[in-house]
């Protein structure tokens, strides 16, 4: 039951966003201040991470390094998202089958995430570039036949992949009893972000025109604060911001007491 503490952290963050907007009406804080802050922290932290990536690479003297996309993915995000699964992969190194399946899964997961991120650009670019609109059209072709809403294929793929990852890592931590208690925080943050976004598309809808005005306000530095949108929008923004901050910070070991044990789990 070690994942429960991670779940509680993410539920607490959700509650903070709901309380801040739904009760305290701090729209500007959660709609404008926190996204800007998270972006700045992410920019600095991620740059730092890229520098550390090189520092921690004993086999490569500067200038002769080869970083493939695969290695970069592994180094930058695996520690954060798939700590427990990576351990599994190393065990089955001899057989090529599972490892290839694993990599196919990873590419599908990050591919879906990338398309979802690109789709979000329609909220930050005016006019919307035609390739983004085209992507959206292709992604939502399943609409026909489903009731009452657009369906994005990438949403389904992403949430299924994420569910598999979460369940597998919980399962493997039961089997091995290794994972540290807070190492699920990024996975649950990602799950929370995805779920809050999906709820907004399919269930508690928000006015996309106001949401885009908020987004355009951020990128043009002419802030607009939508006050008649549901708290779900701000919960989504807050969870994504938290995830950005986590991704920026998680390489700085001394700052987080769970970081060391997380790495131990990786080494197996």
């Amino acid at each position: 039951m070690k994942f429960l503490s991670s779940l509680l952290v993410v539920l607490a963050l959700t509650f903070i966003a709901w309380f801040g907007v739904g009760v305290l009406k701090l729209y500007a804080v959660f709609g404008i201040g926190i996204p800007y802050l998270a972006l700045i922290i992410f920019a600095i932290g991620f740059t730092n991470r890229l520098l550390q990536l090189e520092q921690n690479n004993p086999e490569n003297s500067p200038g002769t390094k080869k970083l493939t996309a695969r290695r970069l993915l592994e180094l930058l995000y695996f520690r954060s998202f798939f700590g427990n699964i990576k351990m599994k992969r190393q065990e089955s190194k001899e057989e090529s089958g599972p490892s290839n399946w694993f990599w196919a899964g990873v590419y599908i997961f990050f591919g879906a995430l990338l398309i979802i991120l690109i789709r979000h650009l329609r909220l930050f670019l005016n006019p919307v570039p035609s390739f983004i609109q085209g992507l959206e059209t292709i992604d939502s072709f399943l609409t026909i036949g489903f009731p009452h809403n657009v369906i994005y294929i990438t949403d389904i793929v992403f949430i299924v992949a994420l569910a598999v990852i979460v369940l597998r890592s919980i399962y493997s931590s039961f089997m091995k009893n290794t994972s540290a208690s807070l190492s699920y925080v990024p996975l649950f943050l990602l799950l929370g972000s995805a779920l809050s976004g999906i709820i907004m598309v399919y269930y508690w809808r928000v006015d996309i025109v106001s949401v885009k005005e908020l987004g355009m306000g951020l990128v043009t530095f002419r802030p607009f604060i939508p006050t008649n949108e549901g708290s779900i929008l701000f919960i989504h923004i807050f969870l994504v911001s938290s995830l950005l901050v986590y991704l920026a910070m998680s390489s700085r070991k001394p700052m987080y007491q769970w970081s060391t044990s997380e790495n131990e789990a990786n080494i197996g």
Partner: protein
Amino acid sequence: MIYSKKIYLGILIFIILLISPFLASLGKANVPPVPSLDTPVINAMAVKQCVEPTEYMKDYHMQLLYKWRDEYVREGNMIYVNSRGQKYTISLEKTCLKCHSNEEQFCQKCHTYAGVKLYCWECHQK
């Protein structure tokens, strides 16, 4: 610590990607679309009301339309009773577009802004 050129290039690409929406919007104003309500039918209305409350329409009009389509095509139901108890004929062309006869100045204003392209007009008449 000496870093290789590649890592600086990587950092540069990362930063440019991150701030690209800001760069693309340099000097632009933040103007939302204003869908026009200036049609003969709406101008003639004493109380200017949509099928459902305006806030609901802004968020849910697509769900309402999909629901209408299913009610009409699958259930054969032709009448929609709204939350105020008023009755409307279920029809995209004869109900929505009777009041909102200015599709370009109304529906499209928002849809272009939000990057939505309706495929409805491949079959339905504007």
